[in-house]
């Protein structure tokens, strides 16, 4: 039972970690807390449901959901970062909150506000291993999220794109002077963040098999906590933070009941903010994050 809870916590934590990576990429490079990311998570989950529901094969449905989220993320980029990077730091934050509202209510307008049940793509595909029940989508999800985050880390460290990106994180004006095509690199950042968020949404839909227009909020808020706990701006910190938040949530439910989850998770967030605001694994540029 205890080991099973750990397995569940790790699976939940990997979803949080994926969303936290999207958030941390945006704040680490652009110094911008992108509140539209929970909305992109929802687009991933709801779109894969809508397409699968309409009879589209699952791989195609997933591709469709990812493409839509990437496109939506590019729209967010146009209206938040590109247009307003010279304005007050509140402005992109506020606009991204508005995008979250926009996506949620567009989803309601199209699909209604009911909870929808995802068709079971992997009917009873569970592995039993030493008394533990491990769902195939869970396992695939975990492997994919760790793999994708590892690939992203390599991309940032080793490639020309990664170097350009780190230059922008350091100082975007200097990057511009050094000939970095900021608009293009930032657009890629938004696409990558959108893909990570949407992929997490797809994993969530496949694992927990229920989607609704507000599904991004609860997960997004926990992912923000995961990002802070792990260390803002650090992608491996997102994994650590995601796992810690997943464990906290699962064990809070186990020992104190479902109503206690928010107290435990956000209490932990507040505690970390007070005693170690840089998080457990300090990020690339935490000192600069002045909103």
């Amino acid at each position, binding site marked *: 039972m205890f080991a099973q809870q750990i397995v569940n916590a790790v699976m939940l934590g990997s979803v949080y970690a994926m969303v936290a990576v999207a958030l941390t990429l945006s704040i680490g490079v652009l110094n911008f807390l992108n509140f539209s990311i929970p909305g992109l998570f929802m687009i991933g989950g709801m779109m894969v449901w809508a397409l699968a529901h309409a009879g589209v094969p699952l791989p195609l449905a997933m591709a469709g959901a990812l493409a839509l989220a990437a496109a939506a993320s590019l729209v967010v980029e146009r209206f938040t970062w590109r247009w307003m990077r010279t304005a007050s730091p509140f402005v992109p934050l506020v606009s991204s909150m508005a995008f979250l509202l926009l996506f949620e209510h567009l989803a309601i307008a199209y699909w209604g506000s009911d909870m929808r049940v995802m068709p079971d793509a992997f009917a009873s595909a569970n592995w039993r291993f030493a008394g533990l029940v491990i769902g195939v989508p869970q396992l695939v999800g975990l492997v994919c999220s760790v793999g994708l985050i590892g690939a992203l880390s390599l991309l940032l460290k080793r490639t020309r794109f990664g170097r350009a990106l780190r230059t922008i994180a350091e100082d975007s004006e200097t990057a511009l002077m050094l000939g970095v095509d900021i608009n293009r690199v930032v657009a890629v950042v938004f696409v990558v963040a959108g893909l990570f968020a949407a992929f997490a949404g797809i994993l969530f839909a496949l694992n927990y098999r229920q989607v609704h227009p507000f599904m991004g909020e609860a997960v997004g808020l926990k992912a923000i906590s995961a990002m802070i706990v792990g260390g803002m701006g650090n992608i491996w910190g997102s994994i650590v933070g995601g796992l810690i938040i997943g464990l906290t949530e699962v064990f809070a439910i186990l020992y104190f009941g479902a109503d206690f989850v928010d107290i435990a998770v956000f*209490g932990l967030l507040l505690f970390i903010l007070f005693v170690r605001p840089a998080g457990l694994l300090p990020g690339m540029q935490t000192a600069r994050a002045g909103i």
Partner: protein
Amino acid sequence: MSGYLQAVLVLLAINVVFAYGAYLPLAAGQLNIGLAGFAAIGAYTSAYLSNQFALHPLIAILLGAILSGLVALAVAVPVLRTRGIYLALATFALGQIIRAAILNLEFIGGAAGYPVTGFVGLPMVLGLAFAVVVIVSLLFGTRFGIAVRAVQDDERVADLMGVEVRGFQIAAFTLGAMIAGIGGGLYAHQFGYIEAQYFNVGLSITIVLYVILGGIQTTMGPLIGATVFTLLPELLRESASWRYVAFAAGVIVLMAMRPQGLLTRGQLRQLFAWRHVHGSTHDDGLAGHVA
């Protein structure tokens, strides 16, 4: 007066009160996205007092506001140790914890909600909202207002000029929480029923949006923002979800066209000046220094 008009006026008045609760910390450069938590403290305390001790609603509301202020004062010192995005997230965590704590308190109804026996009519709601607007406006004409603005424009320079930065930040945070408490108390006694779910992060964000849309340079900004963005959606009553879509799109467009908000200091000065004032456009540039 028709019931509908009355309902809109009540909503407007309560939103205006909430907006000033968010305005005070914002004017001191703090983004409080846990305001709904303080509104909840005001709402539940006043409801409990008028239910249990049959206090006059006005007294219960004021006591609720005081408790909300005391809680804010108690947490202000650790919370305001953080700054920028960390401060915003700490207030967010605090709001979530307060809401979750209320969900777990059975003596005030827990998750089932809490009926309120006391009632305040429209005149008193409007009267209190008017009082809040007047008091905050007067307050910003004093040394307090000048000091808070100085802190918002540049914390370091304000410090060098001998402004007690931390003191004013704590005062602005606490006063904002008290005003939010008044709004919560009014809500409880007007609608006769409260539940913890109402005081969620969505409410906090919406309130902050009103203020930033109205503009934080003047004390009339929150009034304008809350009024325009409460009444405007009423014109689109036909379809609830498209109403929110329109609101969100409006926020995004407004932030793109006019990042400093609807009303700026320069405009007010021109409106009330004897002669044409030069350099008012220069004043708008202050928006770039917020936070």
